[in-house]
């Protein structure tokens, strides 16, 4: 259903961005298939390696899971919208839910000594570590993440900091 079929193959990806969208029910069971679709589309544009398999995959999984669980509170009447735009330099992923939003600055650091053995609280932290840019809208119900496709550093998984 996407319009960028003109880009099929990696050549087109050099010139203008490929775009793809999902609009998903608020159900955790669909996350694997949704992320699988996005990864596969990215791969078709010659994006690959740990930046795709680790950074993109985990970052997007976390953002969608939070949108389903906290944003939409698994409300069967709400959807999560994912918009991805990919050019030869970077991929931009927006994940939006229909929730009230939250204050991302208020989320504690899970690597602080007292938090290390907490069962939760690592999702947003991983997004911040794995993505090159992350920004919430004012309300806090939509996140925009940017991931550079290749980094000079050798260990792509830890490409920043």
């Amino acid at each position, binding site marked *: 259903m996407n319009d960028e079929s003109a880009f099929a193959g990696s050549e087109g990806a050099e010139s203008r961005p490929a775009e793809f969208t999902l609009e998903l029910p608020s159900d955790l069971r669909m996350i694997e298939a949704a992320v699988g679709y996005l990864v596969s589309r990215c791969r078709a544009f010659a994006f690959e390696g740990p930046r795709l398999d680790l950074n993109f995959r985990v970052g997007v999984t976390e953002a969608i899971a939070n949108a389903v669980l906290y944003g939409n509170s698994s409300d069967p009447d709400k959807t999560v919208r994912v918009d991805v735009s990919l050019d030869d330099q970077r991929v931009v992923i927006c994940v939006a839910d229909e929730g009230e939003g939250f204050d991302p600055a208020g989320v504690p650091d899970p690597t602080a000594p007292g938090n290390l053995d907490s069962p939760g609280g690592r999702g947003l932290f*991983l997004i911040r570590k794995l993505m090159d840019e992350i920004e919430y809208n004012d309300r806090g119900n939509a996140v925009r993440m940017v991931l550079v496709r290749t980094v000079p550093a050798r260990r792509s998984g830890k490409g920043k900091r």
Partner: protein
Amino acid sequence: MSFHTSQENGVVVVDVDGQLIVGNRQELKQKVLDELEGGERKFLIDFANTGYIDSSGLGVLVSLSKKIREQGGELRLSNLNEDLRTLFELTKLDTLFSIADSREEALSSF
């Protein structure tokens, strides 16, 4: 994801095939807790065939480790590929778990 458990020298070995993520972590948790309930105390989770883990998957490992320790038992991990290892390092969970390179190494050190 699917996983299967086996017994090797008194250790319950769990192989995780596929992703360990928010949609399926409950299954792994329940399985290990059942074994713990049944009296088992030594656990090894092997990630040789694991695709990726998200924060919920990491969280399940943390809470299992805690519950096993509370019963005087021990949980070890083995065969983390480079990507998975990166996740443990980023979250500093590599300091919390005993992580072996291979299954044999993990089993022999219990």
